[in-house]
């Protein structure tokens, strides 16, 4: 809780994420916060630095067959398969609510091809349907995102990252965030590719591929067999990837992966993230993102730091 703040010591939480002005560095991870309305029952979502939407595709998607979730130690595996309402329903039914709440919106998009990403970005841009675009080049749970050999995601191939990013960049002036998969040998390669193609920011990380098997039945726990691991279990991996990418690129980074409380968010800032997003923790504690925000404010007061941006990359090595 923020108590006893005086005008002189109130820290400045505002940040600039590659052109996207956020009133504080805390957003929510795509796919863990629906379209915002789901969580507005618990707190004023307009207080967040931004609301990131579920990945939007051109047409509605049904996603994978159930079961789609399994709990794992300090986290979970999911294989939702990008079920979403599609861009048109988003525009007519979800966007007005977000605007009414005065939320800053990061519209996350997913396409089957570069052309689809381009079309989605055009629609978001021309309809004023987002204050920034986040291109999800990294969903592990859709078969159509995998190439011939069965396991390649767009963002596992730096040339694809460059091609897709360049194509989207060409049709929008909105801040463009590229979201990458951690399932790579070297995160700096796709990160550099995105930067070179004109991305304004990166979002790191999407989920880590995983598999859980029921020992009794010998069946996988998910009907998709494999899924994406998220939650506190992945945090050290995510923090390191942010730190790696930070030293390779100049564009700002949204750090994501297992953030549960303010200290976790601050870890990401110290490793080099400019903003953070709270993901799976929203499921456990629906007001987690606001608690993280309040905790960051407390931390800044306690450490007498005026601007939150002073923490970015400030790990003492």
């Amino acid at each position, binding site marked *: 809780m923020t108590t006893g703040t005086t005008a002189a010591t109130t820290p400045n939480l505002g940040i600039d994420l590659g052109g996207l002005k956020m009133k504080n560095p805390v957003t929510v991870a795509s*796919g*863990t*916060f*629906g379209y915002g309305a*789901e*969580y507005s*029952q*618990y707190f004023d979502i307009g207080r967040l630095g931004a609301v990131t939407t*579920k990945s939007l595709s051109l*047409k*509605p*998607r*049904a*996603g994978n*067959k*159930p*079961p*789609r*979730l*399994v*709990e*794992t*130690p*300090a*986290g*979970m595996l*999911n294989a*939702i398969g990008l*079920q979403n*309402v*599609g861009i048109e*329903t988003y525009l007519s039914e979800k966007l007005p609510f977000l605007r009414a709440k005065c939320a800053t919106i990061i519209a996350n998009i997913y396409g089957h091809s570069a052309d689809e990403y381009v079309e989605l970005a055009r629609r978001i841009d021309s309809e004023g349907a987002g204050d920034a675009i986040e291109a999800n080049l990294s969903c592990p749970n859709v078969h159509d995102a995998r190439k011939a050999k069965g396991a390649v995601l767009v963002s596992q191939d730096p040339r694809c990252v460059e091609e897709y990013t360049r194509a989207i960049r060409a049709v929008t002036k909105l801040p463009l965030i590229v979201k990458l998969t951690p399932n790579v040998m070297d995160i700096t390669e796709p990160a550099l590719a995105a930067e070179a193609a004109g991305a304004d920011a990166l979002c790191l990380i999407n989920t880590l591929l995983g598999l859980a098997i029921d020992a009794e*039945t010998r*069946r996988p*726990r998910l*009907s998709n067999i494999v899924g994406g691991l998220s*939650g*506190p279990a992945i945090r050290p991996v995510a923090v390191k990837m942010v730190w790696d990418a930070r030293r390779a690129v100049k564009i700002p980074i949204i750090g994501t992966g297992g953030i*549960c409380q303010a200290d976790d968010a601050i870890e990401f800032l110290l490793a080099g993230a400019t903003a953070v997003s709270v993901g*799976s923790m*929203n*499921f*456990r*504690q*629906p*007001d987690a993102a606001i608690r993280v925000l309040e905790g960051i404010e407390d931390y800044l007061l306690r450490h007498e730091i005026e601007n939150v941006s002073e923490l970015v990359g400030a790990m003492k090595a």
Partner: protein
Amino acid sequence: MRYLLECEVVENDEVAPEQFRMRINAPELSRTAIAGQFCMLQVAEGLSPFLRRPMCFERIQRDHVSILYKAEGEGTRLLSKMRPGTTLNVQGPLGNGFPIDDSFERHIIVSGGIGVATFPALAEAIVRKCDVAPEVILAARSKHLILCADEFRELGCKVYIATDDGSAGEKLFASQMLEKLRPNPSCRVYVCGPMIMMKTTSDVAMAAGADCVVSLEAQMACGDGACLGCVVESKSEKEGEKMVRVCLDGPVFDTTMIDWAAHNMAYDR
């Protein structure tokens, strides 16, 4: 309105082997919840287990709600160890609840195992709103797993007991017992239990032309409609309506809209 509450555990007693009833002081919930809705409980203070556990309301009383649960895995075992006076973080009420319509002549409740947990509140609401006591089928593997029979009788319900091993009542499955009660188009049948039992019981109800609603179960993360993890397949052909969320669109569904043939029972717990 949904709440996020720190509630006091008032009672937590073992009512049958491994089966517990917990009473929670939660006026916000008891004043707003309806039968068939559920809550999500944070079973541990630390981060393990990570996810909340869904539990429906057994009873919705003046300032309290109660839950009836089976201690089987890590989460429910932790729940079963909570002493009166413990503070429990509760999110709810969630989901849609049972429809109640006094135009039906008969109301038949069919429960399988711990699925009974959602029905005392329903029976109470039916008695209150429709002025008729539902008929109740309690089915379970064995005698010691038959719960709440006296509660239903106190509400004026006629209770039919069926066990797989014949140790109490008749040696029948729930669906066979329903057949014996001769449901007809002026009945509404309410079903909750294992998925396979809900399917076979729905088949009997539908064949008899009765209206039939089921309260489904699925692995959940958010309970709020956000994660899309808890879906089941509906009969809709539209891509955007194919998957319905048990937490938000349910847990209570008209059984005719569920695509039972698509459901893979091999994954059920």
